[in-house]
């Protein structure tokens, strides 16, 4: 319908992976992942220029923008020429096009320091930058051309002193017009011949040619900070096989083991590892680790469609990449800080990140296998599988939202969307806000969160299996909600009939209304019978031999979440005994409309011991 609000546009945003979910607020610890600078302290120090010039341009840019350029007039003159050029590479482009207004916004603050500062900074830029910034807006005219103009046209021109040359600044933007005029005045004050040459070159330069040249130089410089093209960035999302690369841990341990290590339960595992490295390895500055994690996040910007100057987007990516790296470290090391520090010190963060993706990939594969064996129409399944295999995450989200929401229900659909997101997310417990219930997600960052995600997937897989059991010998609609299918089966079973999905008839409802409390199964019996029933079927999440199953989850019982969800459905059925006929009818048309049964809070840890 509209360009910006079309499904295609939305798929592109969802494909980027960091915007489409309600997320918990970034907490203090995540904020600390991005290097922070205290510019006031640096200015007050004994060698502010040396300190400023030792900083990475990216970090310096964000510190300046956060503080506000108008409050950083003392800092701006201390930047080296290279830093200024690099900051321009970050901040004066948008969607790969040069934004002159933003460039003159920076130069305007230098003008406040002094006109000569403005001139010097502009001259420090590549010649291609200088020309590209002026050529769309400046024209030069000789005396002859001037004489042929009308008075109105002449009034719009500016004259070079002591020469028969005139120039115009052609833009409707008052701020840009003022900026360009200030620059030309400043340049004329410092070096007249430079000013004339600059304007002449800019005026007669072919359109867009200089911008194209400087774009190439800019991209080459951004690559040094880790920014990659879209295609190169996609390669970071290739999952490594967890089994084959388990030897990541086989490096010689070069770290001291005598240092006392205390894990802070309020800190993430990654932060604990970095803190440990700072103590144990005297040459290892935590800032270097932060820088390498920032590099990793920069590399993701291409695939995630985050502009280099988008601090908010970059922080989101940093949270995701650091989270998944921390999860990988924790899993690889078994939670051992020393082992994890050794891995972090000796392995490229990209590899650690990809190893964690390998675990998520196994979970995705298992979930797809469970969906393939379910009642969901095969055409939908094929499209989902194809898009998941080709990492078209935006399309996966669309299929889940449009084709599977009514079949799976909102909670399961949202969890699957989080799993099939470019950056996998872990669900937080369902929270109630006023009358609304919603699920919030956070970047996957620990083994416990991964186990929780596995547990949600297992619960869904169990429901899919149970729903397909109810349809074994029955012609049921393939798009019926799985909760409905299961409750129809429970109803039939409660009446002593085969466990199958069949819309209850009046006789069934009359019989159901007469059931006594002792006719219903107790919690213990129900859970035991359901567990046996499902475990006798084909294994859930068909990744029996995979790392996820063998190393992390174990071979045995259903997760508590799976049992809780199924028992919840059974209890909802029980509650309907006292309901009106229309409510019971609602139950089988829209199970979500019937309130959940209350039951004691249970944890969602997976049962069973590790193999």
């Amino acid at each position, binding site marked *: *319908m*509209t*360009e*910006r*609000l*079309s*499904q295609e*546009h*939305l798929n592109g*945003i*969802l494909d980027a992976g*960091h*915007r*489409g*979910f*309600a*997320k918990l*607020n970034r907490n203090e610890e995540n904020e600390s992942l991005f290097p922070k600078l205290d510019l006031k302290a640096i200015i007050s120090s004994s060698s502010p220029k040396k300190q400023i010039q030792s900083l990475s341009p990216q970090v310096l840019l964000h510190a300046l923008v956060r503080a506000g350029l108008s409050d950083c007039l003392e800092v701006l003159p201390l930047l080296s020429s290279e830093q200024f050029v690099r900051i321009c590479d970050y901040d004066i482009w948008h969607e790969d096009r040069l934004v002159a207004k933003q460039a003159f916004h920076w130069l305007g603050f230098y003008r406040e320091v002094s006109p000569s500062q403005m001139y010097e900074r502009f001259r420090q830029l590549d010649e291609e930058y200088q020309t590209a910034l002026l050529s769309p807006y400046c024209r030069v005219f000789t005396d002859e051309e001037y004489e042929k103009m009308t008075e109105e046209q002449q009034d719009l021109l500016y004259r070079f002193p002591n020469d028969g040359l005139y120039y115009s600044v052609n833009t409707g933007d008052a701020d840009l017009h003022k900026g360009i005029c200030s620059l030309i005045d400043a340049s004329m004050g410092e070096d007249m011949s430079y000013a004339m040459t600059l304007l002449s070159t800019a005026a007669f330069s072919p359109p867009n040619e200089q911008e194209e040249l400087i774009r190439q130089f800019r991209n080459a410089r951004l690559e040094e900070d880790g920014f990659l093209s879209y295609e190169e960035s996609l390669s970071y999302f290739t999952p490594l096989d967890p089994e084959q690369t388990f030897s990541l841990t086989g490096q010689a341990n070069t770290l001291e083991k005598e240092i006392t290590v205390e894990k802070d339960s309020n800190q993430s595992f990654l932060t604990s590892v970095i803190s440990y490295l700072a103590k144990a390895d005297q040459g290892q500055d935590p800032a270097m680790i932060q820088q390498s994690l920032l590099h990793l996040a920069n590399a993701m910007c291409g695939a995630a469609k985050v502009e280099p100057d*988008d601090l*908010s*987007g970059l922080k*989101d990516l940093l949270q995701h990449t650091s989270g998944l790296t921390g999860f990988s470290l924790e899993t690889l090391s078994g939670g051992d800080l020393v082992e994890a520090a050794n891995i972090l010190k000796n392995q490229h963060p990209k590899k650690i990140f990809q190893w964690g993706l390998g675990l998520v990939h196994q979970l995705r594969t298992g979930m797809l296998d469970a969906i393939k064996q379910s009642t969901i129409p095969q055409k939908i399944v094929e499209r989902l599988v194809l898009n998941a295999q080709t990492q078209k995450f935006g399309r996966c989200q669309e299929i889940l*939202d449009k084709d599977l929401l009514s079949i799976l229900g909102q909670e399961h659909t949202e969890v699957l969307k989080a799993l099939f997101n470019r950056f996998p997310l872990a669900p937080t417990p369902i929270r109630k*806000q*006023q*009358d*609304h219930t*919603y699920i919030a997600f956070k970047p996957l960052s620990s083994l416990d969160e991964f186990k929780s995600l596995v547990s949600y997937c297992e619960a869904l897989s169990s429901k899919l299996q149970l729903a397909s059991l109810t349809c074994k010998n029955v012609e049921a609609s393939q798009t019926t909600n799985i909760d409905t299918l299961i409750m129809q089966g429970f109803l039939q079973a409660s009446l002593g009939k085969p466990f199958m999905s069949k819309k209850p008839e009046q006789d069934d409802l009359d019989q159901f209304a007469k059931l006594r409390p002792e006719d219903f199964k107790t919690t213990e019996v129900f859970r035991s019978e359901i567990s046996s029933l499902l475990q006798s079927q084909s294994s859930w999440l068909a990744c029996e031999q995979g790392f996820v199953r063998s190393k992390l989850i174990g071979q045995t019982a259903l997760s508590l979440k799976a049992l809780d969800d199924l028992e919840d459905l059974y209890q909802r059925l029980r509650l309907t005994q006292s309901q009106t006929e229309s409510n019971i009818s609602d139950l089988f048309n829209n199970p979500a409309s019937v309130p959940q049964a209350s039951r004691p809070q249970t944890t969602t840890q997976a049962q069973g011991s590790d193999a």
Partner: protein
Amino acid sequence: MSTLNTAPNSPNSPLSMEERMELERIMNIKYASKLMGRLFTITSHHDTAASFVKVTLLKNDESFYYPIEGRIEHKSQNLSAKEASLLLIDYIDSYFDEFLREDENVFVPIDWSEFSYEGFTLSLRGQIQDLKSESIADQILAEGKVLPKADTLQS
């Protein structure tokens, strides 16, 4: 996506209910990571000369209520009412994109102000309100209760 906040369709809306709900759905997913429990709703209507659109970002309890209203003279600019409404929605969406990206520090004028978008002229206005507090204040005034003195409020 929840439809609890979807307003009923105006009889002279150039957009059908389904179209409006679809646009709301997409906006709510697109900005999900920054909504913090808020939702977008869209309403629209038109007359013979102009189209009007209102895109509101709000919390359910209306303690945060931010309507952005847009209007465009579709007849004089050779647009159909529907095209004009979609153009307005596009522009308002680009505003909210910047608003949410820049930590909610970018605002449109309170009174109607002209903007140019894709060669067309349109007007926008908007102001953040706290309707919940306003409603409580109205209630207090209506009941004729004496408000506590300012210095006692600080304790």
